[in-house]
């Protein structure tokens, strides 16, 4: 065998393997391209076109869709700020509940495995089904909550009849549903920190809180950032909870961009406006993620 032949052969092998690699990727990439790229392009185009629910894009370009959502006070002063309120509310409360939950579940005790399983369980349950159960619990006539209140002689209200009670309930269900994922993420983060540090910084004693802030929190920061970004994306885009509990009612007072979009498209035959709302929600998330990740980067530096 001549000495030069070996590297040459491995060079062609490398080329061949690179080709095999691309070939292996191709089917997955093809499906992703169709299911992601086409709808995104089509959503953007629709938002600046005349679109009919029954016939699709019929002409354009037009600013009509944007004008009608941006001139609609119900959207600008209702749905949009409410969506932010819902997202920020759910995400911040979730983090606030999940941090202690993760710390509690991190400790060593008998039955820890079972405790973890029970707390994380709701993650596996379909959201619409959880939401149906909560809807029953808060039902005005038959619900568990009002049934219990009645035993104390209190006539509970119809919880989902008004935004002032329905919105907090929605947020509560959102938090309840987000806790498992967040807790498990934070648990993973805590595992990464290592038992000895945690032991040293355990919450016992008077300055437990200080130690938590000084030692654990900074170490947990990267995972916390991930939990915040992912939760924000999930909660912002959340559909089943609101859809099952109130469908955005009464009088759109519990709508978020997502449920409003869905109704515009499939109930009120305004696909153009729905698509414009889709673009809005996408832009909001993009801006948020970019801003937050930059902030997080600066933070760690």
């Amino acid at each position, binding site marked *: 065998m001549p000495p030069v032949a070996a590297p040459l052969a491995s060079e062609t092998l490398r080329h061949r393997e690179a080709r095999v690699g691309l070939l292996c990727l191709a*089917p*997955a990439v093809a499906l992703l391209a169709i299911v992601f790229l086409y709808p995104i392009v089509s959503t953007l185009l629709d938002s600046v076109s005349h679109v009919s629910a029954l016939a699709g894009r019929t002409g354009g370009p037009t600013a009509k869709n944007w004008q009608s959502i941006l001139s609609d006070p119900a959207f600008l002063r209702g749905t949009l700020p409410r969506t932010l309120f819902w997202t920020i509310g759910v995400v911040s409360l979730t983090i606030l509940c999940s941090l202690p939950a993760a710390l509690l579940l991190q400790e060593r005790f008998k039955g820890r495995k079972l405790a973890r399983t029970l707390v994380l369980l709701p993650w596996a349950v379909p959201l619409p*089904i959880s939401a149906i159960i909560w809807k029953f619990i808060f039902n005005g006539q*038959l619900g568990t909550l009002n049934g219990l209140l009645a035993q104390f002689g209190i006539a509970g209200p119809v919880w989902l009849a008004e935004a002032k009670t329905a919105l907090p309930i929605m947020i509560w269900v959102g938090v309840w549903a987000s806790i498992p994922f967040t807790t498990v993420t934070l648990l993973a983060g805590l595992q990464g920190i290592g038992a000895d540090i945690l032991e040293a910084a355990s919450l016992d004693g008077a300055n437990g809180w200080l130690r938590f802030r000084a030692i654990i929190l900074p170490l947990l920061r990267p995972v916390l950032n*991930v939990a915040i970004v992912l939760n924000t994306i999930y909660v912002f885009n959340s559909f089943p909870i609101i859809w099952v509990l109130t469908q955005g009612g009464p009088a759109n007072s519990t709508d978020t961009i997502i449920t409003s979009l869905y109704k515009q498209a499939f109930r009120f035959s305004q696909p153009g406006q729905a698509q414009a709302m889709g673009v809005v929600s996408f832009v909001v998330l993009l801006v948020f993620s970019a801003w937050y990740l930059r902030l997080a980067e600066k933070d760690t530096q």
Partner: protein
Amino acid sequence: MLALVLRRLALLVLIAVMGAPFIVMCLTALKPSIEIATHPLLPATWVWDNLLAPWRDKLPLFFRNSLLLATGTTLLNLLLALPAAYALARLPTPGKKLWRQALIATQMFSPVVVVVSLYRLASSARLVDSLAGLILVNTAYSLAFAIWLLTAYLAAVPDEIEEAAMVDGCSRLSAFWRVLLPVARPGVVTTIVFVFIGAWNEFVIALTFLSSEQNKPLTVGLHDYASAYSPQWNLLMAAALWAIVPVIALFAFIEKHLAEGLTAGAVK
């Protein structure tokens, strides 16, 4: 000591709150209809037959559809994700970094934002109101995650193991099949469970795409029943109980891998 008691107490409260809806679900499922309004917690008469009632109704149909949907999604997903993950983990594929970033980018999207366009795409391909269309969309939305997870597991297998197999005369394919995959099995199992649960739980696409009752999975079937005029809550809860049994079982099965699974795409 006091702190310890408080912490255990807090843990109990946490567990109670997270489990409360499921307790309500079970208790309501076992009540006769007339007790729903009068007995908020324990039934006075336990009606175990309520648990069987949904099986005499539409539950078998919805259950079968959910099963087909989740299994189909899982299989198609593996079929596409395994080669892709192999390419990213173990082959000198060009543009690896770019591909990975593109995969993360897809995680930003929720199907509900582009549901109108997805619907139109599916209908132009005549895939509306069919499980096949749902399987494709579900697969696409879980594919990035699956590739990511599998890549991490496949990359963790030491090169020597695969090389040893190939020196022994295995082709790349059979080395992958006989050596790599068994070593990375926990990862494959975790991926399967995640994708399966995700497809089992999917709601908005199924709600939008499907109109025939024949095709509806549990999530949509139960939602329709709950939003019908006067749902019989006890039977609805019984059906809900059955609907969550498979995912809970799977969940318990991979619980110990859950953390790495959930965070694999995120932390890296």
